[in-house]
């Protein structure tokens, strides 16, 4: 039963560490999924050869480099171009026709990580003739990820997968039209890079910054607890105009949030919702 006391101590230490991260740096992970946070912090503890969570906290309070490592650990940046190609196909077939009826369009990628999702959107808009009348905002609280997104590089080894995703998402051209590659890296075309407005925005602590027609927040909310999901859904609701579209990740839904009644299920399987008029 020794183990169980240890785990209680550890849970207390994690709470104290999260409080410290918030007090000292303004990053608020206190309402993230506990099991997830615990696992990530323990990984960092092992990787950095530390003995306990309180040792992690001590180091985080003294050592800025270590803190930024820890923040990277707590932000899961795994992403890809045209991730869940069926989703992008539905976007093209069902959502684009709605956007075409607007004279000016604003799109928000919340939790954009290293940018692949926003670049996929930019390509889609180009092929659908909406590029010039759209503004794409792509935000994340992870500055490191944003900096990489801005550069628009990705590893050559991913081209094959991305091309396949692009094709199954009903791409109209050749994916290779959108980047230049050498033997190691590929870089997205300048026009695509210039299109996207990258900004640091924290979904937990920052507020509405624009009224938009379409929000994509995919694979971000699974890391939040129910209360925090609810809060962020309120933020999205307030940012969308009437008839606005909200897209969530494959395993996410509006199930537990107060505003769920304010949306219709537009494409149920692809987790696309439409704000009621």
């Amino acid at each position, binding site marked *: *039963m020794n*183990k*169980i006391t240890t*785990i209680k101590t550890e*849970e207390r230490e994690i709470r104290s560490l999260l409080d410290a991260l918030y007090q000292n740096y303004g990053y608020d992970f206190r309402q993230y*999924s*506990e*099991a*997830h946070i*615990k*696992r*990530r912090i323990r990984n960092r503890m092992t990787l950095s050869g530390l003995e306990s969570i309180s040792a992690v906290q001590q180091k985080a309070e003294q050592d800025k480099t270590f803190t930024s490592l820890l923040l990277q650990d707590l932000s*899961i940046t*795994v992403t890809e171009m045209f991730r869940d190609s069926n989703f992008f196909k539905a976007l093209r077939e069902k959502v684009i026709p709605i956007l075409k009826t607007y004279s000016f369009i604003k799109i928000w990628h919340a939790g954009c990580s290293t940018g692949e999702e926003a670049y996929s959107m930019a390509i889609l808009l180009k092929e659908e003739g909406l590029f010039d009348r759209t503004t794409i905002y792509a935000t994340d609280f992870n500055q490191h990820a944003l900096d990489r997104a801005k550069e628009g590089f990705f590893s050559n080894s991913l081209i094959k997968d991305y091309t396949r995703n692009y094709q199954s998402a009903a791409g109209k051209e050749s994916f290779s039209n959108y980047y230049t590659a050498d033997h190691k890296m590929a870089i997205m075309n300048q026009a695509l890079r210039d299109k996207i407005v990258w900004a640091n925005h924290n979904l937990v602590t920052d507020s509405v910054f624009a009224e938009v027609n379409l929000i994509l927040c995919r*694979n971000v909310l*699974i*890391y939040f607890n*129910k209360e925090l*999901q609810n809060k962020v859904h309120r933020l999205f609701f307030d940012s969308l105009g009437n008839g606005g579209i909200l897209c969530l990740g494959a*395993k*996410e*839904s509006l*199930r*537990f949030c107060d505003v769920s009644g304010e949306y219709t299920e537009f494409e149920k399987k692809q987790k696309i919702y439409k704000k009621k008029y």
Partner: protein
Amino acid sequence: MKFKAIVIGVSSGGITALKTLLPALPATFGIPVIIVQHLAFNSGDYWIEHLNEACEINIKEADEKEKIEKGMVYIAPPNYHLLIETDQTFSLSIDEKVNHARPSIDVLFESAAETFNQHLIGIVLTGLNNDGALGLKKIKEYGGTTIVQDPSTAESDIMPLSAIALSPVDYILPLNKISDLLIQLEHQL
């Protein structure tokens, strides 16, 4: 009742193994069952439908934030790690693979051990890697009960052998004996 959850890890050979094990459980089975299966395909929908047809007990994919209930079998969605929160709900994550796997058995077992302690049964079945061995050890350390499929009866014996090598397990049994045992353990106080 003593046991509040059963976690199962299965890899290569899992389709046959689960089709042997799960149909033996009655519809009213009193302990929730949570499974990580490494699948070669990307959507589990068809597989779950197929299992449901073969079983009395209800089988579904685990949803994030879903409350764990008895009379249910939950399977981790392909490509997501499945974790259990202290309030006995599920969390999903798509961070790096563990033991080359996502979902990883170790990830599920570890969080289950910490939530359910001695009220947990952990089972490692057929498979070609060593995912689940560390997790099963952890379940044992937290006072849980551990079962491994008898390697000589497993389609792939590497996963059962790795689990047995890493920590002492309570039962080593063929599949049909595992379901008998679970039905016995259901009513243990």
